[in-house]
């Protein structure tokens, strides 16, 4: 049995349509027009313990709705979610003590008080005994440098520090599963780096399963061995990141630096995508021709001074995935 099982999950919302103009406003008072929206349309997947899974998708794709159902905040219209065999919305209190959740844009920290006060409150709510509390604080200090900010009032923390605080608060009770909703949003490079480092570390040290919703492809690249792409409420891709890249963007780029300018470079298995005076970008399918072969072919024909091979841009790949039509 997988740790997290999502089976045929569906979520429908009833939306009231507001009509235009004065007549519309009056008629909405008496005869509001309602229709159903399927935010999540029959999705299924399993996640094993210890995985780090990235959830991506355009805005409105159904990501946060899915996450809310996985954490038990929202009831599914149809289908089921099971964490370790237990349904989170049916047995809320049993499951929730083992989950940690961080919302990127909302904080659970008490705004006006020291960070430590929120920790003390959570210690009591989650019934964390003194030893576990001490150990966890120590571990969080190693990974997040938490004692540096534990005495600062939350409203005085920078965004990056506040995020560290929220992550620590979510980990305090040693959850087996961590849900992170856009944890690196708005952070600078330094801060993003330390958050990603934290996620890697707790996954390695504690075996925490991490489910990460993000728009930041740096997060995807650095953290997610597995990627689930959701669009229009359906799963569009689900698998190891490498194989998705292989499939969606099987090409690579070869950048050739010429010794002297040449026009109209050509190779049967490569496409010229960009040219500058002394540089040419080739795009080639690595399943049709190897880089080494292409280089040797080209150097026979053209005066090449230097070459470099580039991997495809994840961003391009993701954009391609978003564009794919969703089959019902």
């Amino acid at each position: 049995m997988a740790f997290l099982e999502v089976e045929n999950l569906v979520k429908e919302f009833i939306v009231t349509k507001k009509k235009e103009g004065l007549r519309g406003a009056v008629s909405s008072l008496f005869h509001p027009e309602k229709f159903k929206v399927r935010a999540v349309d029959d999705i299924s997947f399993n996640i094993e313990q210890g995985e780090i899974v990235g959830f991506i998708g355009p805005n409105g794709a159904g990501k946060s709705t899915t996450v809310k159902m996985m954490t038990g905040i929202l009831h599914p219209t149809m289908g089921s979610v099971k964490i370790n065999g237990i349904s989170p919305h049916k047995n809320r209190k049993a499951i929730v003590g083992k989950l940690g959740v961080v919302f990127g844009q909302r904080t659970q920290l008490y705004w006006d008080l020291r960070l430590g006060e929120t920790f003390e409150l959570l210690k009591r709510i989650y019934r964390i005994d003194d030893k576990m509390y001490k150990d966890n604080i120590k571990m969080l200090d190693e990974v997040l440098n938490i004692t540096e900010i534990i005495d600062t009032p939350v409203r005085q923390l920078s965004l990056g520090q506040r995020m560290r605080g929220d992550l620590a608060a979510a980990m305090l009770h040693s959850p087996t599963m961590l849900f992170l909703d856009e944890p690196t949003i708005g952070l600078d490079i330094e801060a993003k780096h330390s958050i990603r480092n934290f996620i890697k570390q707790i996954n390695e040290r504690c075996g925490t399963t991490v489910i990460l919703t993000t728009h930041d492809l740096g997060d995807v690249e650095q953290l997610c061995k597995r990627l689930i792409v959701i669009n229009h409420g359906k799963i569009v891709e689900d698998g190891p990141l490498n194989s998705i890249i292989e499939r969606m963007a099987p090409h690579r780029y070869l950048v050739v630096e010429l010794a002297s300018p040449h026009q109209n470079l050509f190779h049967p298995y490569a496409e010229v995508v960009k040219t500058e005076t002394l540089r040419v970008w080739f795009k080639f399918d690595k399943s049709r021709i190897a880089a080494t072969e292409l280089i040797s072919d080209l150097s026979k024909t053209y005066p090449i001074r230097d070459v470099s091979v580039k991997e495809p841009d994840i961003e391009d790949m993701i954009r391609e995935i978003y564009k794919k039509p969703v089959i019902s």
Partner: protein
Amino acid sequence: MQVEFNNEAKGYVVMRAYCYLAKMKLLVFLSYRFEVFTSLGTNLIVVLANIYLWKAAYKGIDSVAGVRETQMLTYTIMSTLLASFFSVNIEHELQERITHGDIAIDFFRPISILLKYLAEDIGIAISSVLSKLLPLLVIMTVFVQPPVPDSPMAFVLFLLSAVFSFLILWLISALISLLCFWVLQLGEMKTVKDGIVLLLSGKIIPLWLFPKKIQRIIEFLPFQYVYQTPLSIYIGKVQPEQAAVPMLIQFVWIFLFTVLLSFGWSRARKRVLVQGG
């Protein structure tokens, strides 16, 4: 090619603009209908409770201090109507802008910002006639009694006096908001002022019920001239011949407060421009 607008076309355009504005107002009203109804409900409850209290007080008694039951009921109804008319926004606005530092820009504007607030508050007062005052008036007339003025002259003088009252109240609020320049964490000064007004203005307790000595003291304060004065004129406790004196005192208070306000305002201005917000 010259395009000429004749007067008819101009009038048409203006009419359409006003219709559009009215439509917008109505749309906004409909979307906030919940709050409007609950605020109407609150006003209704308060005035009805007071009405029943006065009925119980007057049971079997003809008049006290020269005031009969119907007059007292009229007083109560009109007091609530006046209160719905006297809503003032300047204190919120000004306090907000001072604490956020936006106020510095206002000093550089060509139009005095105070006049702008006054115009806004007058606008709000007039619109609340439609949204608050009229519905209350209708309900009170149907379910309790129509609040008839003592005489046509009394009504006219009442209107003038009410305008003075509005100005006095507005000036007091503006002066209190001004304190924000010096005491940044003003907290809820507005509510303290409201509390004093509640007690000493005749809004709830007609001042002729207070012991004579206290009445003497209250006469030197501006509060009585906000509610008591217009209301007593309306119900005829103060007859038109006698109205000149209290209305004159209203005017004096307006004058005093205006002077104080402009003085305080220029001091505040100096402070901001020197200190930099």
